[in-house]
C-alpha cells in the first residue's frame, strides 16, 4: 500500500529530525525519503488511473484519480524542495543566519507540513479534510515566521488569522453539507464517498449556500482574490523552499478541497452554478493579480502574485467545465507547481546573494549566479506561458476550451491579462538578470543540490510540455475520468 | 542600324536644342545673346581641356560620367523616333525609363558627395529631394497616359491619336515634371552658380574637361527626350513606314515639334521667377494633382 509510504515517511522523518544531530546528514536522508514518496505516488497514480478508486482504513482513506494527481504534484514539489533545502539550509547555517538547532526545527516543520498536505487528498471524511487543511496553516505559520524578523512575524500573523477565519467559513460550509445530507433522511456521515452517490437528492438551496461558504473559506486558503491578501505577505517572508511549497502546492490543496465539494454540487445538477462562481473568482484573481504584478517592486511578492494569477487561471479552467478545460486545469496545477517552485528557488538564491528583495536594487544576476540566472530566465518564459514549455500547452488548452464553449469574452480576457503579465515579467526580470554586476559583488558558486533541484524541475517543465503534445489523447481520457470520482 | 542612327540624331541635335532655348531667352530679354551653336563650342572646348580631379575623390567620381551618359543613351534608344516602334522596345517600357534615369541621378549625386565639398553635398541633397518628389507626379502622368492608351508601351501613344482633355492635362503635368527634370526655372537655374539657388550645377561643380563634357551631353539628351515625350502627347502625328524618303520629312517635322516645345520652355523661363527650394514641393504636388485629374478624365472618358 503505497499510501502508507506516502503518509508514513514524512512522519518518520519528522521524528527523525528530532533525533538526528547532524543536519547535513539528515538533509540527505530527508531527500531520499521524499524520493521514495515520489515513487510511491507514481504507483498510486498508475493504480487509480486504471483501477479506479482505492479505499483503506475503513473508509478513512479514499483515493481516486483526482487525489492521486494532487498527491503526485505534492510529492514532486516536496522532493524538489527537500533537495533544494540541503544546500539552502547549510548556507544559512554557514552564514550564521540560523543555528543548528533551528535547522533541525526547520526539518521537523518541513516534514510535518508535508505530512499534513499529503493528508488533504488522502482523507475521505470532509471534516478531516478540513482538519488537515487547518493543520497545514498552523504548521506553515511557523515556517513563515521562521526568521523571526518584524516582517516575517507580521506576515505569519496575517497568514494565520486570515486563513483561520476563512477556514472557519469552510467548516460552516461543511456542516451545511452534512446538514443537507442529514435532512435528506440518510444516516449521518461526512464521508465524501457516501455523499457523492446521493448528491442528486440533496436539497439544492442548502447546497448552494454551503458551496458559497466552501468557496469563500477554502478560496481564502487557495488565494482567490479578493481573499488573497495574506498570500503575498506569507510567500514573500517564508524560507525559500517553503515558499515553493506554499505557492506550488498548498494553494492547490485548497483548490482540491473546493473541487471535492464542487463535484458534489455538479452531481446534484448545479453545474452552471459551480461554473459561474469558479469563473467569477478566477477572473477577479486574474485581473487583480495582473495589476499588482505590473507595478510590483519586491521579487518574492511578484512571484506570489503570479501564483494568484495562475490559481485564477486554474479556477477558470475548472469553471469552464468541459473535459478539455479540466484537462488543461489539472495540467496547469502540475505545471504551475513545477515552474513556480523553480522560480522561488531562483529567487531564494538571488535574495541570498543580494541580501534584498527590491528588484530595482538587483542587477546582473546572470553574471553573479550564472546557473541560477539562466534557469530563472528560462523559468520566466516557462511561467508566462511561452512555448515550448509546459504551461504554454495547459494555458492553450484552457483558452481552446474557452473558445469552444463560445465564451469569447473570457478567452479575450485571458489573452489580454497573460499578455500584460508577460510584459511585466520580462520588464522586471530583464532588468534584474541582465546588466552589470553591482560594485563589490563577486561570482559565487552554487551548491550541487540546488543545481540538481533546478535541473529536476526544468526537466519536468520541458519534458511535460513536449510529451503532452503527443499524449493528449490519454490526458483527455484522464480528464473525463477525473470528475467521476 | 536604327539604334546608331537614332543616337547620332540625339547627339547631333540635343545641344542645338539647348542653344536654341538660351538664344530665345536672351532675345526675349532684349539681349543679343550667344549663337545657337554655343553648346557645341562649349563641348569642344571642354574636350580639348584636361581635367582636374579632387584628391578626396574615389573611383565613384571617375566612373560617374560614363554611367550618366550610358543611362541617358539607354533611354534614348527606347524612344520611337524613326519608325512606329522604338529600335530597342524589347528592353522595356515607359516605366523603365524612369528607373534608368534614376540610375544616372544616383551616381551623379554620389559623385557630388564624393569630393567632400559642401556645394556638392548641397546639390546632391537638393537634387535627390526634387527627383524623389518628381517620381510620384511622373508616375501619375504615365499612369494616366497608359490608362488612356491601354499600355505602358511608349509606342502605344506615339501613333496618331485624338487630343482629349485628359491628354491635355497629362501634357501640362508632364511639362511641369520636365521643367523639374531638366533643371529649368522655376525649379532650378542652369545659368547661375550662386550656391543658394543652384542644384544641378552644384553637383557637377567639381567636374572639368572631358567628364564634364560627357555629363553636359547627357543632360542635353535627357532634355531632348523629355521634350519628345511632350511632343508625342500634344502633337500626335502618323508615323512613316521604313522608307527613307518618308522618314526624312518626318524627322524634320519631328524636330520642329520639339523646337516648339523648346520655345515654350524658353518663354516660361523668362516670365516665371525661380522658386524657393521648399516651394518646389508644392509645385510638384500640383503636377501630381494634375496627373490625378488626368486619370479622372480618362476614367470619365473625356
Amino acid at each position, binding site marked *: 500500500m503505497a499510501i502508507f509510504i506516502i503518509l508514513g515517511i514524512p512522519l518518520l522523518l519528522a521524528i527523525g529530525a528530532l533525533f538526528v544531530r547532524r543536519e547535513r546528514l539528515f538533509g540527505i536522508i530527508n531527500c531520499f525519503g521524499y524520493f521514495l514518496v515520489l515513487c510511491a505516488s507514481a504507483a498510486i497514480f498508475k493504480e487509480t488511473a486504471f483501477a479506479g478508486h482505492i479505499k483503506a482504513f475503513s473508509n478513512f482513506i479514499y483515493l481516486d484519480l483526482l487525489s492521486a494527481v494532487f498527491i503526485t504534484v505534492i510529492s514532486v514539489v516536496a522532493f524538489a524542495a527537500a533537495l533544494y533545502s540541503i544546500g539552502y539550509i547549510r548556507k544559512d547555517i554557514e552564514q550564521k543566519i540560523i543555528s543548528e538547532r533551528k535547522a533541525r526545527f526547520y526539518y521537523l516543520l518541513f516534514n510535518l507540513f508535508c505530512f499534513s498536505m499529503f493528508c488533504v487528498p488522502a482523507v475521505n*471524511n470532509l*471534516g*478531516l479534510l*478540513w*482538519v488537515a487543511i*487547518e*493543520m497545514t496553516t*498552523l504548521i506553515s*505559520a*511557523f515556517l513563515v*515566521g521562521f526568521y*523571526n*524578523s*518584524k*516582517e516575517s*512575524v*507580521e*506576515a*505569519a*500573523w*496575517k497568514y*494565520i*488569522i486570515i486563513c*483561520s*477565519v476563512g477556514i*472557519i467559513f469552510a*467548516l*460552516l460550509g461543511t*456542516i*451545511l453539507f*452534512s*446538514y443537507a*445530507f*442529514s435532512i435528506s433522511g440518510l444516516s*449521518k*456521515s*461526512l464521508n465524501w464517498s457516501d455523499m457523492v452517490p446521493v448528491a442528486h437528492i440533496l436539497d439544492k*438551496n*442548502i447546497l448552494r*449556500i454551503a458551496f458559497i461558504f466552501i468557496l469563500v473559506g477554502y478560496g481564502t486558503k487557495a488565494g482567490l482574490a479578493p481573499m488573497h491578501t495574506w498570500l*503575498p*505577505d506569507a510567500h*514573500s*517572508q517564508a524560507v525559500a523552499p517553503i515558499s515553493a511549497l506554499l505557492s506550488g502546492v498548498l494553494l492547490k490543496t485548497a483548490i482540491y478541497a473546493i473541487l471535492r465539494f464542487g463535484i458534489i454540487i455538479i452531481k446534484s445538477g448545479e453545474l452552471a452554478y459551480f461554473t459561474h462562481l469558479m469563473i467569477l473568482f478566477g477572473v477577479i484573481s486574474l485581473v487583480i493579480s495582473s495589476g*499588482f504584478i505590473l*507595478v*510590483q*517592486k519586491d521579487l518574492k*511578492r511578484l512571484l506570489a502574485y503570479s501564483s494568484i494569477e495562475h490559481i485564477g487561471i486554474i479556477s477558470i479552467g475548472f469553471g469552464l467545465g468541459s473535459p478539455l478545460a479540466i484537462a488543461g486545469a489539472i495540467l496547469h496545477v502540475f505545471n504551475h507547481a513545477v515552474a513556480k517552485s523553480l522560480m522561488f528557488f531562483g529567487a531564494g538564491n538571488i535574495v541570498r546573494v543580494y541580501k534584498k528583495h527590491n528588484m530595482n536594487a538587483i542587477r546582473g544576476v546572470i553574471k553573479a549566479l550564472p546557473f541560477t540566472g539562466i534557469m530563472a530566465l528560462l523559468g520566466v518564459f516557462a511561467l508566462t506561458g511561452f512555448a515550448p514549455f509546459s504551461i504554454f500547452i495547459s494555458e492553450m488548452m484552457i483558452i481552446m476550451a474557452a473558445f469552444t464553449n463560445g465564451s469569447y469574452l473570457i478567452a479575450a480576457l485571458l489573452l489580454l491579462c497573460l499578455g500584460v503579465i508577460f510584459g511585466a515579467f520580462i520588464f522586471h526580470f530583464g532588468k534584474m538578470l541582465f546588466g552589470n554586476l553591482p560594485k563589490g559583488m563577486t561570482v559565487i558558486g552554487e551548491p550541487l543540490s540546488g543545481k540538481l533541484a533546478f535541473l529536476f524541475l526544468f526537466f519536468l517543465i520541458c519534458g511535460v510540455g513536449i510529451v503532452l503534445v503527443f499524449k493528449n489523447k490519454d490526458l483527455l481520457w484522464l480528464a473525463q475520468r477525473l470528475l467521476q470520482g | 542600324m536604327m539604334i546608331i542612327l537614332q543616337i547620332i540624331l540625339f547627339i547631333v541635335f540635343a545641344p542645338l536644342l539647348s542653344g536654341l532655348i538660351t538664344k530665345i531667352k536672351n532675345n526675349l530679354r532684349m539681349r543679343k545673346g550667344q549663337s545657337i551653336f554655343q553648346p557645341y563650342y562649349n563641348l569642344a572646348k571642354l574636350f580639348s581641356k584636361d581635367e582636374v580631379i579632387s584628391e578626396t575623390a574615389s573611383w565613384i567620381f571617375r566612373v560617374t560620367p560614363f554611367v550618366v551618359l550610358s543611362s541617358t543613351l539607354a533611354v534614348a534608344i527606347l524612344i520611337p523616333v524613326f519608325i512606329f516602334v522604338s529600335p530597342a522596345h524589347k528592353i522595356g517600357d515607359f516605366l523603365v525609363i524612369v528607373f534608368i534615369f534614376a540610375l544616372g541621378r544616383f551616381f551623379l549625386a554620389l559623385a557630388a558627395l564624393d569630393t567632400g565639398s559642401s556645394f556638392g553635398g548641397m546639390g546632391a541633397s537638393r537634387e535627390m529631394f526634387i527627383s524623389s518628389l518628381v517620381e510620384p507626379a511622373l508616375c501619375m502622368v504615365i499612369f494616366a497616359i497608359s490608362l488612356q492608351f491601354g499600355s505602358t508601351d511608349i509606342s502605344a501613344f506615339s501613333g496618331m491619336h485624338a487630343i482629349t482633355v485628359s491628354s491635355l492635362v497629362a501634357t501640362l503635368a508632364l511639362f511641369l515634371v520636365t521643367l523639374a527634370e531638366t533643371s529649368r526655372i522655376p525649379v532650378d537655374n542652369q545659368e547661375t552658380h550662386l550656391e543658394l539657388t543652384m542644384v544641378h550645377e552644384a553637383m557637377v561643380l567639381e567636374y572639368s574637361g572631358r567628364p564634364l563634357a560627357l555629363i553636359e551631353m547627357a543632360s542635353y539628351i535627357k532634355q531632348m527626350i523629355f521634350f519628345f515625350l511632350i511632343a508625342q502627347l500634344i502633337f500626335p502625328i502618323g508615323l512613316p513606314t521604313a522608307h527613307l524618303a518618308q522618314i526624312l520629312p518626318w524627322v524634320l517635322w519631328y524636330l520642329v515639334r520639339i523646337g516648339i516645345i523648346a520655345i515654350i520652355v524658353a518663354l516660361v523661363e523668362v516670365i516665371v521667377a525661380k522658386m524657393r527650394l521648399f516651394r518646389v514641393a508644392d509645385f510638384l504636388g500640383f503636377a501630381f494633382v494634375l496627373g490625378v485629374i488626368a486619370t479622372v478624365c480618362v476614367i470619365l472618358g473625356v
Partner: protein
Amino acid sequence: MQGIILFALLASTYLMVIAKRTPALIRSFRYQSLCLFAITFIIALTQREPDLYIVAGLLFTLKVSLIPYLLYRIIRKIKVNEDLGLFINPQLSLFWALVFTYLSWIFASYLVSANNAILTGTLAIAFFVVLAGMFLMIFRMTALAQIIGLLVMENGLFLFASTVSGGMPFFVEIAIFFDVFVSVLIMGFFVYRINKLFTHIDVNKLSRLKG
C-alpha cells in the same frame, strides 16, 4: 430550558460586542462557552449518547477553563494596556449587532422549513454568534481581540453543528477541538512575539507589508 440558555448565550455575545476592555471580553467569552457547554450537556442527557458527554467535557475543560486561563495569562505576561481599541464605539457596535441578529434570523428561516421554530431560532443565534465573532475580528484592534473573535466564531460554529446535524462525527469533533486548542496556543505564541518585536499588540499598526 434550552430557550433560556440560548438567550443567555445571545446576551453574552452582546456583552462581547459592547465590551471595551480585554478582560471583560474574555469573561463574557467564558460565559458564552459555559452556555454552549450547558446546551451540549442537555442534548447529551436527552439523546443519551456517550460521545456527546465527552464532547461536553472537552468543551468545559478547554473553552470554559483552559483557554480563558491562557488568555488571562497572556495579558498578565505582556503588560500592555488592556484597551481593546475600538474602531466602532459600543453604541454603534450594538446597533450593528442587532442588524446582524436580524440578518441571521432571515438566513436561518431561509435554511429550515418554517414550521420548526426552535430550530430556526437556534440556527439564527448560532449564525449570529459567528457574525459577531467576525465583527470582533474586524473592528477590534488588538491581537487578543482577534483570537477571541476567532474563538467566538468557532463557538457559533459548534452551536450550529450541534443543532443542525446533531454534531459532527465523533472523531471529527475531537480533531476540531484539538485543532482549535493548538491554534490558540500558536496564536498566543505569536502574540508574544509581536509584543516582543513591536512592543505592542495593536495588529492594526502591522502594515509593513503592503501592495
